[in-house]
């Protein structure tokens, strides 16, 4: 399936792309467009104004996808807190890691194409998922 999002991916869009590949559509292909009018007919749009999978209420797109697809995994919701704070900066969650993630994503976005950014952030989110999962099980920091 094809998925379309705005070009110039940052934390929310790169986290969503990772979430889509890992939990919704392992064969996902991503296209990057400048606006809703450029979304191909066969693609599902995300993190775009007017898209079903966008910001809704106080949720960022990552949280919207978790809700729409009933992904209740507490590890994903912990990642959602980081993504939300890095994206919206509204102090809705206590996620001190957000500032670091924000810097890394901004830096990657400056130096690489959207496709490259997604290929570099996927292993990061995989690893962070594993790390948080262990801390959830162990009830503390794993390392």
């Amino acid at each position, binding site marked *: 399936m094809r998925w379309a999002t705005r070009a*110039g991916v940052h934390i929310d869009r790169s986290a969503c792309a990772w979430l889509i590949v890992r939990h919704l559509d392992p064969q996902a292909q991503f296209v990057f467009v400048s606006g809703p009018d450029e979304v191909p007919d066969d693609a599902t749009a995300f993190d775009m*104004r*007017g898209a079903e999978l966008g910001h*809704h209420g106080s949720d960022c797109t990552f949280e919207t996808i978790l809700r729409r697809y009933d992904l209740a995994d507490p590890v994903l919701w912990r990642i959602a807190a980081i993504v939300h704070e890095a994206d919206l900066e*509204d*102090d809705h969650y206590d996620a001190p890691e957000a500032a670091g993630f924000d*810097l890394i994503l*901004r830096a990657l976005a400056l130096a690489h194409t959207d496709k490259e950014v997604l290929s570099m952030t996927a292993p990061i989110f995989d690893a962070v998922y594993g790390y948080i999962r262990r801390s959830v099980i162990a009830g503390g920091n794993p390392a």
Partner: protein
Amino acid sequence: MGRLVLQWYRNRGYMVFMVDSVPAPGEWVFLTYRLPRVPSAPRLALWRKFKRLGVAQLADGLVALPADVRTREHLEWAAEEIEEAGGTAGVWVARPSTRALERSVIEPMNEARAGEYAEIARQAQLARDAAEPERTRGLRRLRAQMRRVERRDFFRPPQREQARQALKDLAGQELVAPMEVSS
């Protein structure tokens, strides 16, 4: 566009680096909106968002921020939120016709930030007399507050440097500014 700054470091000598980029002169992103008076919850949420973003309120239903990728995105999502709450909204990129007009928008924004920095500096000075661990707690709280203010500060009034210095003094750091990275 960034500015080049020459800074002296005791162990490294002079270093040249670019300070935070200032948005391209003259380009602003506008949000025009209408939102029903009732229910009041969405209006309140929007007002809080505007306050956090440090917008210039130019008229009823019209706010502005210097245009960059981030401010544009913030206002686009605000527009989405307004439409979801039953209102109408539009995001525009605009340019003031004169420098004087632009200054009249920038000045109140700068004054608001200057006031926030001055308050941080004042509280940092008060906290210097506190005993541990209150002093450390105060430092942590004021640093977080500083980050929030810097996020909505687009023009860097001189009070920013005073607040930074007050926080460094509170932390007991040397007076030499370390190189910093900020968004």
